[in-house]
């Protein structure tokens, strides 16, 4: 093995570690690095202290179109594009930096990172296989993830025009109701 390929391998290991730390599933690592499955599994166990989860990756584009996932996906993908197209980052470099920048914004808002790293990766792959496109909102002119070939005129995004049931999930209602419970208990 030449010296160059050793360095190359080191880079691949570093990339794999970074991806694992950010929450990548095994399929992501297998696709994006040349490391063997056995080595990736070992690496995964060493970094995360557990075996990689089994099972298939989500394969539908529909998730990215639902309300909150769409907003998170759109933010991430816009950042990814800027880094790759405007600032000359290579694909995986742009991906990792964009995902960190996305997490940073989520942390500022004290929100949940709705878009996991593996989801973010499938999002990029869907764009690469032309199954998704960015559509411009007619009101705020932001760019949002949409199904490929969906009509773009009169498109309004989920922030400017949230669906009527937006934010009214069972979980949200439970959270809204929760703070009053301890107070009631104190009074009792």
């Amino acid at each position, binding site marked *: 093995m030449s010296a160059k390929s050793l360095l190359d391998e080191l880079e691949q290991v570093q990339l794999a570690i970074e991806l694992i730390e950010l929450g990548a599933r095994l399929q992501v690592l297998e696709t994006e690095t040349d490391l063997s499955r056995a080595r990736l599994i070992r690496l995964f166990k060493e970094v995360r202290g557990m075996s990689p989860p089994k099972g298939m990756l989500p394969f539908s584009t529909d998730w990215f179109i639902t309300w909150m996932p769409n907003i998170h996906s759109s933010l991430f993908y816009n950042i990814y594009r800027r880094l790759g197209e405007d600032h000359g980052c290579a694909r995986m*470099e742009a991906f990792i930096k964009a995902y960190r920048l996305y997490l940073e914004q989520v942390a500022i808002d004290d929100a949940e990172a709705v878009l996991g790293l593996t989801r973010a990766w499938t999002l990029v792959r869907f764009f690469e296989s032309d199954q998704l496109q960015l559509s411009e909102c007619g009101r*705020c002119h932001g760019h949002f993830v949409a199904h490929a070939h969906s009509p773009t005129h009169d498109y309004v995004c989920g922030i400017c025009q949230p669906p009527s049931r937006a934010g009214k999930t069972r979980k949200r209602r439970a959270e809204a109701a929760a703070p009053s419970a301890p107070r009631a208990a104190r009074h009792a």
Partner: protein
Amino acid sequence: MQTNPHVDEIRELNLAYLLLAQRLLGADRAEAMFRLKIDEEMAELLASLDARQLARLANTNQLLCHFGGESVDQLRQVADNPRDQGLGHFHASLLMASRSMLSEGGGHVG
């Protein structure tokens, strides 16, 4: 002549902005260019300035840093969204990230 009391603030802000830009560029060039909305050439130049040059640039009565490229309509939509779901920061962040420094297309953009 009486100077505007805000001029000192502007000069301080200019210097703080330039220093922050340099630190960001030193830490991670591509990420800094994204945050600052500047191109490669500008990044190169800002990073190369020495203290004297920074001070000279900062000492003006006008602000060096500008709005992140959103139009009045966009800002209004973020600030006064009648259907706000508490996603204001997210929206602002998304709009800034939506704008390409290279070209601006309408409709289907990618």
